[in-house]
């Protein structure tokens, strides 16, 4: 039974007013502070200290120490912001970042070395290589749903690549932001790396300043705003944007196991994840079994009253609660869960059925512990549905039939793809993670982060002394020299360098 929406209380108005006032104050503070921090960062960059391998290693190691020494504090603030259980904080926030930092530490030397391209007889007198250099000052705007991971994983990449960074965690996960603001200056170089905070109006001002790369995770609308602003100063961007991640559950499938994996992915962090399956597509036959399995999983995970489970989160703020609540009320039918408590920003793990394509839950990103299930007649119908929509950040398929998996993959596009599980592909250091189309551009994680925050500069070092060969390229151009050149470069073609003879 669903509670009716409560009318706004005077206390709530007052809270909103107070929040607006403090946002305005911090807004005025942010821009001038940021301009100054940008200037400081550029000076630090010019000093050359971030170019040294030892410096970058020391900063990455300090970051790891920061996470290890303050684990309890991180657990505490994430609990305050999102009611995140310790397990989730440690695993999906702290360990993830630590993993990335250690991977960077172990590979930094290799990444920083010039990459020589294959030499051949023709190029043997020259050195041809690609060297990675820092871009400069990077702006990282991390989202609130996994505030530590989404801010610090790109930070690892930017630091490893030798940049200075201005980090702007979300004001929505305010306790975590406040902790980062307090801790980072105690561990990392205070000239090179800065943490700022502020509200949405600050972002517009911030984007007027000139950075060398902007990394943004969040919504499509703001992603567009970021790119548009970046265009004015020809600043490259990486955008990792949210959307609706489809999850197809095939008839040929162990529904019990699929349900466990889907339930874990969907309901961890109270559904507030960019990478979790947003909705399920399955055949009517499968639906009934799936719902039963999900119900049983949820009981196993969170007990009969998820509200009392230490493992279940809360929605981050009242706005999001209202958004999710309204989606549930206007879409399909509640098959599992549905209980809500506004004061606690609690929504029980909820599964919706009889959902139509036109329902709000199928039109808008959910960002909460609600899983709509829409029935389709076949895998092909699921594919057609997915292709009608924008390319998602992640796409999931559950099936024991390799052909179904393969078909789903080749006939659709998405940032990343995972068969028979979810979320994991976004946590791996060895796989680039990012979107495509409306779900974003660019990618990061592991080596990919290092490359994203570097400029890969091609270098050719030629020998000055051997001039005779190069005579062929100079004017006056004649038929004779042209044939000779064509012959010579046909040799070169095999060595992947068309005008090496030049």
């Amino acid at each position: 039974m669903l509670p009716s929406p409560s009318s706004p209380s005077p206390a709530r108005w007052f809270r909103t007013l107070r929040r607006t006032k403090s946002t305005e104050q911090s807004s005025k503070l942010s821009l001038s502070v940021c301009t100054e921090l940008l200037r400081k960062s550029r000076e630090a960059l010019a000093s050359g200290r971030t170019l040294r391998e030892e410096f970058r290693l020391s900063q990455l190691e300090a970051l790891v120490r920061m996470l290890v020494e303050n684990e309890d504090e991180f657990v505490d603030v994430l609990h305050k912001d999102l009611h995140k259980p310790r397990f989730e904080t440690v695993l999906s926030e702290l360990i993830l970042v630590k993993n990335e930092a250690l991977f960077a530490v172990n590979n930094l030397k290799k990444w920083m070395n010039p990459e020589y391209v294959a030499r051949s007889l023709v190029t043997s007198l020259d050195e041809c290589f690609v060297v990675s250099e820092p871009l400069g000052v990077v702006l990282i705007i991390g989202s609130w749903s996994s505030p530590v991971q989404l801010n610090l994983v790109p930070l690892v990449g930017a630091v490893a690549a030798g940049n200075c960074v201005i980090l702007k965690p979300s004001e929505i996960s305010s306790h975590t932001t406040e902790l980062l603001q307090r801790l980072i200056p105690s561990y990392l170089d205070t000239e090179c790396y800065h943490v700022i905070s502020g509200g949405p109006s600050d972002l517009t001002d911030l984007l007027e300043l000139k950075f060398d790369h902007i990394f943004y995770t969040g919504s499509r609308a703001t992603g567009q705003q970021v790119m548009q602003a970046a265009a004015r100063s020809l600043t490259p961007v990486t955008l990792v944007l949210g959307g609706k991640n489809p999850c197809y559950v095939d008839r040929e499938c162990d529904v019990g196991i699929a349900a466990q994996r889907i339930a874990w992915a969907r309901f961890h962090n109270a559904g507030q994840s960019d990478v979790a399956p947003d909705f399920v597509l399955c055949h009517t036959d499968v639906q009934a079994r799936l719902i039963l399995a999900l119900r049983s999983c949820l009981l196993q995970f969170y007990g009969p009253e998820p509200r009392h489970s230490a493992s279940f989160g809360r929605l981050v703020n009242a706005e999001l609660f209202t958004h999710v609540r309204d989606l549930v009320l206007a879409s399909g039918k509640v098959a599992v869960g549905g209980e809500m408590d506004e004061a606690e920003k609690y929504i029980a793990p909820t599964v919706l059925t009889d959902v139509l394509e036109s329902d709000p839950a199928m039109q808008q990103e959910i960002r909460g512990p609600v899983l709509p299930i829409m029935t389709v007649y076949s895998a092909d119908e699921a594919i057609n549905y997915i292709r009608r929509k924008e390319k998602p950040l992640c796409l999931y398929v559950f099936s024991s039939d390799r052909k179904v998996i393969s078909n789903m993959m080749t006939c659709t596009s998405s940032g990343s793809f995972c068969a028979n599980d979810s979320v994991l592909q976004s946590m791996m250091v060895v796989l680039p993670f990012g979107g495509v189309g409306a779900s974003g551009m660019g990618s990061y994680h592991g080596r990919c982060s290092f490359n994203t925050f570097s400029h890969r500069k091609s270098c050719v070092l030629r020998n000055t002394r051997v001039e005779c060969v190069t005579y062929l390229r100079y004017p006056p151009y004649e038929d004779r020299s042209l044939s000779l050149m064509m012959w010579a470069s046909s040799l070169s073609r095999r060595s992947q360098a068309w005008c090496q003879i030049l």
Partner: protein
Amino acid sequence: MSMEKQAVERARTAFLTRRSRPLEFRAQQLKALQRMITEKERDIAAALKLDLNKNEFQTPLYELVGLESEIQLALEKLPEWAAPRTAEKTLLTISDEVYVQPEPLGVVLIIGAWNYPFALVIQPLIGAIAAGNAAVIKPSEVSEHTARLLGELLPQYIDKDLYPVVNGGVPETQELLRQRFDHVFYTGNCAVGKLVMEAASRHLTPVTLELGGKSPCYIDKDCDLSIVCRRITWGKYMNCGQTCIAPDYVLCDQSIQSRVVEEIKKALKEFYGDDLKTSPDYGRMINQRHFKRVTALLEGETVALGGESDEADCFIAPTVLTGVTGSSKVMQEEIFGPVLPLVSVGSVDEAIRFINQREKPLALYVFSYDSKLIKRMIAETSSGGVTANDVLLHYSISALPFGGVGNSGMGSYHGKHSFDRLSHLRSCLIKSLNMEAVNKVRYPPHSAKKLSWARFFILKRVRLGTLGRLALLAAFVALAALVAQRFL
């Protein structure tokens, strides 16, 4: 519906039929492109002569040979480039498939430039086709003969629905930019580059911008100036200075400047003879507007060599300026013409400072026998690319990514880099529905014990051969069973 919108819709419809995906189709299109270049070489050279006074030998050399090489490379390597790229495994993914699968992006917009009007359209097109995309091609209207020729030739050789050519001026380009693409590839100047990126941002379309800038050229004191200046002369005055990676200006010690001028003069004579204007090998400015722009840069400067011009012919003689400083007018914008300022610097430190005070250029050149100095220049400055002891070369090596940084652009291409740039590299994890015991570690209700196990599994990395993996898998299964039984 506008003609531009129609072309884009047709390309998208054609893309959605999936016919551009099979490797055989892509290879067939690339071969057709190759045939076009071979069979129509004369027509292409004729168009380029009309547009830029390029002679019949220059065209194959600088526009076509490179393209043929790229096509050959793509044909040879396509199966390798398009195949799944496996990634390293961890304990947790030991029995899974972990790889990156390249896929086409969709419909790519290619906006070419007028200085190498054929190459700068076809080269990205090769990458677009190889990656399985459709592409809308918009040649620069400034090089009108080549634009028209491309409009006639391309539909005769390659799929005309997948790869339509749209010709026109600014309004047509603006209309194109209002449409939705999956990637926009633009070669040109910064000002328009910004507009292209802004237009693309409305659809969240990624862009590659190959822009320009002032490419510095540092000459160390102890160099064989005759070789150095010959190379610089070749690169600078080719195509009448209208090359995005031409050395824009020279930085050198005051004491060698007069010799530099002398050597350039000698090289010019070797290349173009006594009467430059009648040399078939010396180009012309593309049009009157650019002619006026470049001649205006000479006002108030000391002309050490050249300086002659003829507006009717869009002819500007190869010119060298001396006594130029950082604040001279000629140092405020990319020259893109046959004018070479010499700026005095007392040391390599001063040269590095001078370069770093300015926007990051597309190319940087340094001439020196001292490899330490060269490495220092590379390490302490930033630019799209670098060639030491020569000019332009880094452009010609397919294995090297070619692109800008900062104001000189974003993204890179050539060879495999074109393929990757115009693909979506999709990360894939294929698991099976068994081995659930391991997964149980992550499910609620959470416990401290589960957390310790999870830490162990996630933080361990493995690098093993197949046998090693199998052995570890067996051990792992046993371990997982034990864990599940005893603790969970």
